[in-house]
């Protein structure tokens, strides 16, 4: 009882920071519930990634191997993970609410006939959890019943696991999958190319909205600021819908949730759906020509100005600060 299986997402031999967040949250949960955290790395050749994850303090790492686990696909991964839950008798399965985590965990929960809590932000001592609803306008205290519970955590609500003094033991297992039941086929992954930090990992995020008016302006006006600050670039839904920037830059209720040390909103009005994805940032700065824009109600520092003038100026000012 109390053991937590942590699904460790990885791609191309690497794992995102959100995987370390899951390891830490899983360790935290196991501690509260009197069990241990076991990280599960799945793949057709999971050994190398498993050895990497083993550096981050999980009680154990299981490397679950099967040819059908080569690429991430919900049906194969849910089948293998459910079988492992039964085999280990784990009480919890946890991961971070990334696109992959969101895709996999509900399917797993249904397979285990278990309840699932999405994107929790806190683990309470009394056995309850906290999660946002209504675009973060309500925080729900929830209870999960039954022998197995499935949980995703919000990446911004937990710290990432740190390297531990000694490596966790790694157990190698062959995944139990009935290949005849698999129906999904991986075709391709078209990765957005960028040399900038990941949106969900960056210390500074600079986001642009409809106020930028075009994809070209994102390039010539906003990107110099993004790069001068060494930031990740984000966007509002309006900017993504208009095709100014790729989909995976959307910050908000139905996009990515970020909480960097500094969030700079440029030409973004601050709709509730956008705020849901960034209002836990440590410092928020906003540039908008409309002094009534709702973004100013959450901004620590607001500048009422035309962005086309202010942003290039800001790049110059930053250079001056750097020179000092």
């Amino acid at each position: 009882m109390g053991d937590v299986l942590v699904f460790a997402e990885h791609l191309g031999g690497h794992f995102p920071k959100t995987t370390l967040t899951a390891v830490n949250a899983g360790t935290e949960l196991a501690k509260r519930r009197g069990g241990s955290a076991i990280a599960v790395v799945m793949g057709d050749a999971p050994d190398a990634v498993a050895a990497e994850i083993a550096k981050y303090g999980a009680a154990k790492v299981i490397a679950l191997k099967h040819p059908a686990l080569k690429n991430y696909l919900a049906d194969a991964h849910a089948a293998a993970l459910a079988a492992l839950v039964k085999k280990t008798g784990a009480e919890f399965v946890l991961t971070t609410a990334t696109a992959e985590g969101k895709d996999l965990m509900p399917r797993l929960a249904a397979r285990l006939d278990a309840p699932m809590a999405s994107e929790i932000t806190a683990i309470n001592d009394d056995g309850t959890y906290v999660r946002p609803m209504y675009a973060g306008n309500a925080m729900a205290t929830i209870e999960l019943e039954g022998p197995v519970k499935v949980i995703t955590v919000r990446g911004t609500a937990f710290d990432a696991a740190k390297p531990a003094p000694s490596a966790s033991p790694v157990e190698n297992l062959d995944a139990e999958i009935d290949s005849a039941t698999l129906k999904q086929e991986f075709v391709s992954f078209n990765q957005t190319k960028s040399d900038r930090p990941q949106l969900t990992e960056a210390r500074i995020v600079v986001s642009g909205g409809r106020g930028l008016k075009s994809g070209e302006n994102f390039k010539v006006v906003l990107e110099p600021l993004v790069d001068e600050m060494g930031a990740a670039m984000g966007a509002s839904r309006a900017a993504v819908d208009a095709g100014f920037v790729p989909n995976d830059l959307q910050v908000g209720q139905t996009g990515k949730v970020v909480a960097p040390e500094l969030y700079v909103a440029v030409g973004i009005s601050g709709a509730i759906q956008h705020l849901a994805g960034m209002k836990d940032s440590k410092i928020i700065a906003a540039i908008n020509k409309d002094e009534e824009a709702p973004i100013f109600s959450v901004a620590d520092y607001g500048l009422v100005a035309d962005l086309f003038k202010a942003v290039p100026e800001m790049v110059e000012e930053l250079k001056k600060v750097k020179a000092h």
Partner: protein
Amino acid sequence: MKILVPIKRVPDPATTIRVLPDGSGIATDNVKWVINPFDEIAIEEALRIKEKQSGGEIVLATVGQTTWQEQLRTGLAMGADRAILVKNDGYLDSLGIAKVLARVISDEKPELVLLGKQAIDDDSNQTGQMLAELLGWPQATFASKVEIAESKVTVIREVDGGLETIAFKLPAIITTDLRLNEPRYASLPGIMKARKKELKEIPLDSLGLALSPKLKIKKLTAPPKRQAGKKVGSVAELVSVLHTEAKVI
């Protein structure tokens, strides 16, 4: 092709949500109720598939109270053919809803089920994936493009760091993301026609399902409110406060 689209009734996304002082829920006076925006995208996609194939049937389904008929009628006015309301006044968690929908689907036998990736009230993002598992069907969540050729479906999905393409045979579950399409409005003739379309009510009890929610909501609280800070007078001042006061650059 027969397509089933499960939909949910939610507060209009433009509504200001307030938690009741006793934490039992949200204030619903002055709330305008609408079809969950992602489900509207699902209805639109179903309509486009039907138009392209020039044939087929679109069935809407929901699990809720009598008032939810309104949203089903709106979907019928957009162009869906008929609707099913599984009447339930009690609380069900996502898995419960998925079990009810799985039952409706096994009676209706659609080849494709299209639904929203998340409902904007509880923001759980679970039902479609649960449904896929309960039915033993393939799933494509967060779809931004759907292509159907014969009985093979290719879906482009919005995932972290890019776009993923997966494929499978029908029957299947697809959940919609924002970029899939822009839903049409119901036309006046559409609204007139919708009044005569079939809307069947099924009492939940009559399905004989054993459903006991294992996720329970104990209470709701309002989130801590972030205070507005100050306005700065110039770009130079902004950079200066970020550097010396906030110390983030």
